[in-house]
């Protein structure tokens, strides 16, 4: 097995419970989750079972009723703690219109770096490089609301990656995309050397982008199917291993 440093624990949720005020049942019910450096985790589950809530909890947009959240080994609970978390973990929202609020693409992508304290010219450089890396050069002056759905998703991903995160949370990144954009997204995700969690309904998409799959049911996570398929057309820097949730 890997040493601790090579496969350090990124996200660790312990016994998390969360309920919405209007709901008597727990949306998240004593849930445990571990994401390590080398993990590319897929979560597949029916609608309304709390996947998006899970991400909101990790990012501190909602706070759990009970349980502990550790990010990079540190216990996080206050808003101040989560401000730091948000700099390290990027969240791609389900609806890209929620994420792209600036008039032009470049302003939106540079928004994160500017908030991190980069100077306007540095922020612009970072934004341009990020767009280039995603094959979006030439998009910088496009008006965000005039982009197509697929373009919006890719630009939204650029806005997240421009923060230079150490881990990603992707909320149904493939829904509503055409085949071409979807395969580009798969390619982009596989080239990233980042641990991430992807929520998706599509098994094929998860097979192509993840190495562990979980299912969610009744607010808890269960180990899913093994990863069988190994016919990847794209280069990989890591090995695919089969993992199950460790319940300790």
């Amino acid at each position, binding site marked *: 097995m890997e040493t601790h440093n090579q496969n350090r624990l990124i996200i660790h949720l312990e016994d998390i419970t969360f309920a919405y005020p209007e709901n008597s049942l727990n949306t998240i019910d004593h849930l445990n989750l571990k994401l390590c450096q080398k993990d590319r985790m897929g979560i597949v589950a029916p609608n309304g079972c709390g996947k998006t809530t899970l991400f*909101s909890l990790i*990012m501190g*947009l909602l706070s759990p009723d009970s349980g502990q959240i550790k990010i990079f080994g540190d216990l996080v609970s206050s808003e101040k703690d989560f*401000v730091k978390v*948000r*700099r390290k973990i*990027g*969240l791609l*929202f389900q*609806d890209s*219109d*929620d*994420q792209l*609020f*600036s*008039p*032009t693409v*470049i*302003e939106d992508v*540079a*928004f*994160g770096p*500017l*908030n*991190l304290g980069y100077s*306007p010219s540095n*922020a*612009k450089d970072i934004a341009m490089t990020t767009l280039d890396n995603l094959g979006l050069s030439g998009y910088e002056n496009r*008006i*965000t*609301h005039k982009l197509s759905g697929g373009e919006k998703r890719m630009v939204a991903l650029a*806005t*997240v990656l421009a*923060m230079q995160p150490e881990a990603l949370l992707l909320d149904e990144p493939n829904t509503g995309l055409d085949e071409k954009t979807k395969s580009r997204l798969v390619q982009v995700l596989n080239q990233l050397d980042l641990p991430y969690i992807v929520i998706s309904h599509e098994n094929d998409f998860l097979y192509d982008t993840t190495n562990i799959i979980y299912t969610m049911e009744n607010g808890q996570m269960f180990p899913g199917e093994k990863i069988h398929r190994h016919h990847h057309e794209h280069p990989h820097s890591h090995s695919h291993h089969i993992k199950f949730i460790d319940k300790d």
Partner: protein
Amino acid sequence: MIEEPFANGNSFIHQIDPKLRIISAVLISVEIALFKHLPVLGCALFMAIFAIFLARLNFKCVIKRLYVIFWFLLLVWVTLPITFEGEVIYKLGSLNISRPGIILSAQISFKSISILFIFMTMISTMSINTLGRSLSALHCPSKLVHLLLMTYRYIFVIDNEYRRLQKAIKMRGFRSRTTIHSYKTYAYLIGMLFVRASYRAKRVHQAMLCRGFNGKFYSLEETSTSQTDIPFACIMTIIFIGLVSLEFFSYGNT
């Protein structure tokens, strides 16, 4: 939704620094709004029309926009001359058409059309985006600027949602009639839009928090100055002072 038919021209007015255009448009409009003498207002209107030609705006679009105030002005011309007291210049049956009423109507028409033309040439010739950025460069409160920019950004999304909802009710056989059922349905539809908009606002805010938003907006600002800026500023100053002196000169005469 919101079209910007004038924003993509390439006349010399389009190339002038947007900040300068905003300042000129606001100053001259305020000036015109305060004038009282018809000859001066006529002069201003003439210059505003001339500016439309200078900016090489699509004539059809200009007329279309003028249509917005046409009904307002019509109402003014129908009501003011017969309701205003003063020297009667014409009797229409039992109605007295008064001279001050006519003058007031003319003043209102001249002022509104000139100001509209000035804003068309100076402000509509930049995109909303540029307008927002220039306003913030002019130290307009950043909350107002972002209110403007985000309204512009999300009005399309809300419009989309409206269309989706409208389609959904049509799919289920809804036909707009003057019945309580129709009104109720529209009320629900609008209520739903508000609900969705507030949820959306929450998610947008969350997305901003996730990207390190701390209540402060930074800008990628780059302003370009063109060679025609200084002559433009001079011309605007001359027009401004010229109109003011003309107005005062007219006071002396009356």
